[in-house]
């Protein structure tokens, strides 16, 4: 009896060396412009080719402007040079690239599932920690550093130690106004920022089964914020239906045979997990982070510092430093905290269902005076779908900026950034200090909650607006 994770691991095991390291075969490698240049340089210096170019796909995302004129104008010269470097490396090494003018371009973890690149039972890596997102399709997917990017390009394998497994059973169902993002924040709050270190997490249970693939992608996305490199959901009928209309090439040709085998991709018994915990989805409410780690979170109807349980002098100091950075007082009502910026985007929450949820909140209304609202679709495909559904117009009418796709203000590399002291209601994944721009203050929440907060000009529970 064994776990889904162990089954995929075993089917990709190429060799084991005397030290006990496993050599795993990597089916798919996703490349972006930020974590790949040094890897390509190292290959070129050593005279090594990319071993199996069909197994790689590159996309420009982290650094790309989200302005309408980006095909002709990239203001930051370093960004422009990095984007050009990926173009040149893709040409030299024969790796396919979804460039800025490609309708499939977008954030790597939005594009890969959307284009049917990620299949159940496969191994996927990318030089980006949010690769855990892709485990939502029942793949063994994880983020790696640039040395491993080089290694996988050169050998199509990685040396790894098998992590332990952790099963997270999520019972019940989410209430209206509560989303996968709230669930992800609740999981991180429950097990802590290092609760998943050394483990691969599998999510299962009634709540997970009822989530759409896009919601599962959101849940798995934030697994890394709980310390785990891998977040998986076993494939089911929802997965098969999602992929049937997206796969292409060999996966399209062999779809029935492939999907027939996916039924076996499940954990035999919860007793097979090394560690196990349970969470009740029906008790989860709309959440917001008040501090500088994704575990510093509370109900939107709660207060700053809720859920902080004291600790030793160092932990007290961290709490005080976090609140000083965030410009908040302990015990302050979260519903009274004003915002400057509302950001809807990132590999966590920029898919069409996210945009629909946010648009439903703001339709026919206008964001508060003084608030800057940005909507950055996760891919050009999402952008076009949202435009044809009329969502883009809903956002524009409500006073939001409607931008081109990319990582944008989640990481603040591309010119979309907070200025010092600005407070942002954000659908992104990291509320670390300086993450969205030097001195910026990030509060993580769901797209509906960001939309509600944009209307109110302060943190707001999306259920307030709906009522």
């Amino acid at each position: 009896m064994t776990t889904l994770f162990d089954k995929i691991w075993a089917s990709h095991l190429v060799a084991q060396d005397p030290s006990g390291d496993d050599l795993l075969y990597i089916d798919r490698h996703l490349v972006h412009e930020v974590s790949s240049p040094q890897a390509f340089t190292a290959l070129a210096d050593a005279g090594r080719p990319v071993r199996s170019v069909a197994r790689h796909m590159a996309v420009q995302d982290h650094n790309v402007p989200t302005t309408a004129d980006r095909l002709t104008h990239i203001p930051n010269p370093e960004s422009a040079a990095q984007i050009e470097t990926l173009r040149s490396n893709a040409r030299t090494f024969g790796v396919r690239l979804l460039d800025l003018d490609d309708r499939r371009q977008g954030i790597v973890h939005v594009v890969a599932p959307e284009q049917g690149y990620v299949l159940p039972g496969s191994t996927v890596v990318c030089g980006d920690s949010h690769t855990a997102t892709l485990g939502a399709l029942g793949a063994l997917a994880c983020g790696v550093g640039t040395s491993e990017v080089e290694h996988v390009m050169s050998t199509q394998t990685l040396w790894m130690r098998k992590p332990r497994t952790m099963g997270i059973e999520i019972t019940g169902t989410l209430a209206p106004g509560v989303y996968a993002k709230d669930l992800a924040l609740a999981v991180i709050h429950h097990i802590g920022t290092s609760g998943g270190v050394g483990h691969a997490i599998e999510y299962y249970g009634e709540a997970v089964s009822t989530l759409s693939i896009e919601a599962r992608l959101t849940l798995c996305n934030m697994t890394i914020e709980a310390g785990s490199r891998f977040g998986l959901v076993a494939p089911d009928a929802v997965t098969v239906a999602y992929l049937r209309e997206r796969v292409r090439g060999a996966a399209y040709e062999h779809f029935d045979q492939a999907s027939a085998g996916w039924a076996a991709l499940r954990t035999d018994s919860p007793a097979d997990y090394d560690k196990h915990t349970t969470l009740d989805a029906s008790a989860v409410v709309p959440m917001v982070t008040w501090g500088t780690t994704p575990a510093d979170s509370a109900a939107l109807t709660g207060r700053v510092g809720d859920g902080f349980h004291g600790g030793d002098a160092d932990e007290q100091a961290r709490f005080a430093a976090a609140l000083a950075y965030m410009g908040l007082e302990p015990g302050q009502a979260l519903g009274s905290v004003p915002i400057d910026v509302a950001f809807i985007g990132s590999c966590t929450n920029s898919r069409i269902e996210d945009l629909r949820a946010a648009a439903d909140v703001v339709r026919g209304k206008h964001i508060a005076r003084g608030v800057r609202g940005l909507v950055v679709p996760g891919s050009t495909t999402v952008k076009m779908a949202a435009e044809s559904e009329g969502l883009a117009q809903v956002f524009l009418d409500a006073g939001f900026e409607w931008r081109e796709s990319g990582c944008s203000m989640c990481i603040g590399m591309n010119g979309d950034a907070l200025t010092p002291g600005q407070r942002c209601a954000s659908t992104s994944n990291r509320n670390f200090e300086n993450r969205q721009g030097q001195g910026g203050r990030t509060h993580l929440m769901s797209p509906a909650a960001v939309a509600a907060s944009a209307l109110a000009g302060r943190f707001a529970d999306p259920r307030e607006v709906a009522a």
Partner: protein
Amino acid sequence: MKRVVSRVTGRAGVLRRDDIDTDALFPARFLRLTQRSGMGAYLFADWLAERNPEAAFMAEPVVARVLVAPQNFGCGSSREQAVWALADYGVQAVLALSYGDIFRNNCVKNDVVAATMTADDHAALVSHLEAHGPQALDIDVPARTVVAEDGTRWPLQLADGHAERLLSAEDHIARTLRYETAILAHEQTVRSASPWLASVD
């Protein structure tokens, strides 16, 4: 050939905060650079500018070869620049209660020791450094120990396989190419049994 790391000796710098993320170690705007060298110039760039006490070790005249940190050091982004920056600045070993998994893996790829200690040993080491002032620590990889200047000694734990990698002179890719036959055999199996895995699309 890679560098063999069996011993690290040098001044210790102590960090107090849990969850020091790789965005703090290496702010994202410097990720636009496409080289691997010289990244030490950007280590803790924002925290230095803000005079954050966690970056105070960098103001000392003697480089901290060993960092002592609490929980979940190097969490967050997979950016290897965080390790390149530490190594370029001069850090050769970190002793922490726990790490971000990707960061810890990136350390060993760059010949940086990323060891853990038990909570009791870690507390004793931090107290010792507080009581005896700034001093050098001596880390022995094969023995898995750290020794203070007065000879006080604590055990260290390395992640499985890390000691073998630190002590090996073999390049990471050269090591793998020894398994070429097994890789080819796996690819042959995939082509016949699950051809849908052989190409991204």
